[in-house]
């Protein structure tokens, strides 16, 4: 099971609290993980990735294992610690102050 941490606004939209866990068939990449996430929570479609292009929305980033995975190829396998459930895959909103 893959652990996923969502921004607070998307937790509210998906009606979840804290981390969610998703079963994803190997190989597990950003694309297959987010496909599985959107299949389980259809209301998240279009909120993390563009509906048509499936590109990451501009003000969101992906992190795991203290690494920024945002510009990794979408089909690259996620780090072993994420695959083993030791570390979460985090969707993080860009910080805006004021």
């Amino acid at each position, binding site marked *: 099971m893959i652990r996923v941490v969502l*921004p607070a606004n998307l937790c509210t*939209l998906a009606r979840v609290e804290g981390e969610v866990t998703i079963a994803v068939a190997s190989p597990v990449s950003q694309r297959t993980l987010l496909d599985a996430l959107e299949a389980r929570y259809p209301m998240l479609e*279009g*909120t*993390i990735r*563009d509906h048509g292009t499936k590109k990451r*929305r501009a*003000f*969101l980033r992906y992190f795991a294992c203290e690494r920024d995975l945002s510009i990794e190829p979408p089909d690259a396998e996620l780090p072993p610690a994420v695959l083993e459930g030791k570390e979460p895959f985090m969707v993080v909103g*860009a910080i805006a102050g004021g």
Partner: protein
Amino acid sequence: MSRVRVLAGTRKGAFILESDGKRNTWKISGPHFAGWEIYHLKGSPLDPNRIYASQSSSWFGQVVQRSSDGGKTWEAVGNKFAYDGVPGTHQWYDGTPHPWEFKRVWHFEPSLTDPDTVYAGVEDAAMFKSTDGGQTWAELSGLRGHGTGPHWAPGAGGMCLHTILLDPKDPKRMFIAISAAGAFRTDDGGATWKPINQGLRSQHIPDPTAEVGHCVHRIALHKSKPKTLFMQKHWDVMRTDDAGDSWREISGDLPTDFGFVIDVHAHEPETVYVIPIKSDSEHYVPDGKLRVYRSKVGGNEWEPLAKGLPQENCYVNILRDAMAVDTLDQCGVYFGTTGGQLYASADAGDSWTAIARDLPAVLSVEVQTLP
């Protein structure tokens, strides 16, 4: 006794206010969708418990919410707004071609005949239609495709389709308005469209009498006279009596003819409301005084309505979708400000009360008159 439900969209969520027909005391619920921009909410005239809400954010894009119980609970429905075919380009601020890109829904207009049919006006300007209660959306691409689309350009707030008016006497006729393209009309249910901007003058465009390019801020009609439209343009308050084929100015004695909102009394088709705004750069009410202006003769002669509104040190704006009227015998008028105040008048504008004072900046106001 009838009840009134006010739907307020703000920069940080939606708020729903309810009162009985006296409109003296109000119960407020919200924020719904806290932290998200709610550009607009609107209920079906056939099923008032069916409400559509546009929820958006620069981070997470567009979400469409639908309620079937008057706003107590909500469900996310379809949010895929794909332009029909190859989107093409419109003009960018510098005049260069720029690809059409969906950004958000500015306005929902539920059908007058079917609670599952709803229209959406979006940025970049286009009109979408759903016939399944918002689950799926299809573009009415005859609007962008009628020929002038490549010449449309964004206003400062983006290139938004912000106004949709359904003709209550002719189900095939609709009017829409776009900043900064102008007003358009369809007479065949949205298949084909024509610009209806003859008579508009806009000094900011190279040809001030051009067919398109006018920054129309809002149009309004009375259901008994749908060929008469009232328009608040970037500058000028305008009127047509032939469904937009020709317009004439009715700014008359207004202190300034810039503004965003315009609306019509529920029972008096010649009684019109505007809120003049100081521009071009300030975009707040003149002289620190918040005043609604009312014409009872269809324009040109306007009276200021200030009772109950702040008359010193007030520097708020009232955005284009932030005024509405109820249909009680004594028509109620409502508007919201960028300062987070919601004002209501239960006597057609003669006096005003703040029914909410410290909301986030108000983007839109709609009113439902309930049995």
